[in-house]
């Protein structure tokens, strides 16, 4: 109760990781190809859909890693 309030911060090196799912989907040269196809989907489509997993994975990781240490 009487504990002194230490200055809070939301700065964390983990936040830098969020740049990955922001930058990667914008790099058109990575996915602007037809081959290889997976289950009939050209690379352009399946790779961009898989960036969703990249986004989910990264935000989940950052959330879990920054959650600790703050009550």
């Amino acid at each position, binding site marked *: 109760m009487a504990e002194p309030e230490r200055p809070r911060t939301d700065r964390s090196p983990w936040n830098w990781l969020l740049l990955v799912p922001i930058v990667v989907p914008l790099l058109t040269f990575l996915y602007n190809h037809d081959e290889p196809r997976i289950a*009939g989907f050209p690379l352009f489509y399946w790779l961009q859909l898989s960036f969703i997993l990249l986004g989910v994975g990264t935000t989940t990781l950052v959330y879990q890693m920054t959650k600790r240490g703050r009550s």
Partner: protein
Amino acid sequence: MSDHITEIVIFTALFLLVSGMGFVASRWRAPQDMAHLDEWGLGGRSFGGWITWFLVGGDLYTAYTFVAVPALMFGAGAAGFFAVPYTVIIYPLFFLILIRLWSVSHRHGFVTPADFVRTRFGSPTLALVVAITGIVATMPYIALQLIGIEAVLKTMGVTGESALARHLPIIIAFAILAAYTYQSGLRAPALIAFVKDTMIYIVILVAVLWLPYKLGGWNAIFDAADAKFQASPAPNDGILLNANNQVQYFTLALGSALALFLYPHSITGVLASRNRGVIKRNMSALPAYSLLLGLIALLGYMAIAAGVKPLPGAKPGSVDSNTVVPILFDQQFPAWFTGVAFAAIGIGALVPAAIMSIAAANLFTRNIYKEYLRKDATHAQEASVAKITSLVVKIGAVACIVFLDPQFSIDLQLIGGVIILQTAPAVVLGLYTRWLHRGALVAGWAAGMGLGFWMLWQIPNVATGRKHFGGSAFPLSEFGFDSTKTIYVGFVAVLVNALVAVLVTLALRAAKVAEGVDGTQPDDYLADEGDPRIERERAGTVDNISST
């Protein structure tokens, strides 16, 4: 019309069911006092993980998305798939930025982004600019939801000859929507979003499993689309991007993502959540909708493979490509399932339209009415002004559809995206730094708006033969570059906006122009539910009430 009786009956029944839910919603989650803007306009700021997930998801993925994105894929191919990277990059951006907006809003009781700007920069003028931009950008967005419903009604054959008869079903639907939003506020779309999204998930999953099976597999679908684009004379279509539209593709994705969370309605959905943890968890769960969106986009290719011919548009000789998905469902599914799918799209229009009208009403109430018309407005007066404004906003949106060419609403939406982006320096950068001068932010906003409008004005639409506002892809050659590439207008405009804001800040600071008072403290941006200072203030408020 008689061919579609089953569809119409199911559509109407489901529509009435959720309308009933909309009215009941005012008693859901026991509001303490509906005559308060926090309760009506933000659902009591009490929503947990699941509700926030449905509310924000239901808010960002609208009926217009369901008909327009596949329509774009149907017409232009790969360029329409920008919606996927766009909705992937939104969430890490939200994670970094909106979380701070939630905290500072929670701490100070802000209801709108303009409230934040007002306190952060001590500038009612800048707040007014942000509020008006938000309202203007939201109006056509609501009108687009009506276009989504209209595409469905048209496919079912529910159309008349005169302008009034053609729009009567939409007017009725919106009257019902207006009534329950008026009564229940943000609780109505929050409750309906559960039904809407469940229906949409079922419909889309069935569609993406069943249709490829019927149409000969994904290979055949992509090949059919490829064959169509190979045969078409248009230079920029195809199942892959070409050398000219790649810059456009990623700047549009990035610009749209930035614009999306500046729209007042997305911020409303986020501010309604209970604490920071709810938002952070949602940012990793919400991309489930992006997968849905990617699959919905591919319905455009399925329509090509199925040989869908869109219905004629308002003008003779034109086609209404928004009818592509409804027709695909109508052709490929049994009538009862088509009815469910159409209801999903129709109800899908109501949730975002309700949230958008609430957001616009909040902006008007807090940043125009309370700021300029009646400074001493009580909470009850605020709530009632917001309720009435939400009605006016919806009447305006219906009028847009009834009296204007629907194409005009699409143009307005295009402009809306570009202009809402111009509030980014004040809102987004403002959350991290107060370095920029309030006068400079107004100057940057004006420069970005001017440039954005000029660029949009220059873009013709080859397909419809119109000279202006034909799209958002601006040819770089117009800036004197020796290139055939194009770039997203909003992206250029917001860069110029930021540049002007920086330069004018330096100038105003050199001239020692007053900067205004920052009403926030660094710690405010990290506040969470149960913050001791907020609890103290709340206790203080209760004392005041009991003593009067």
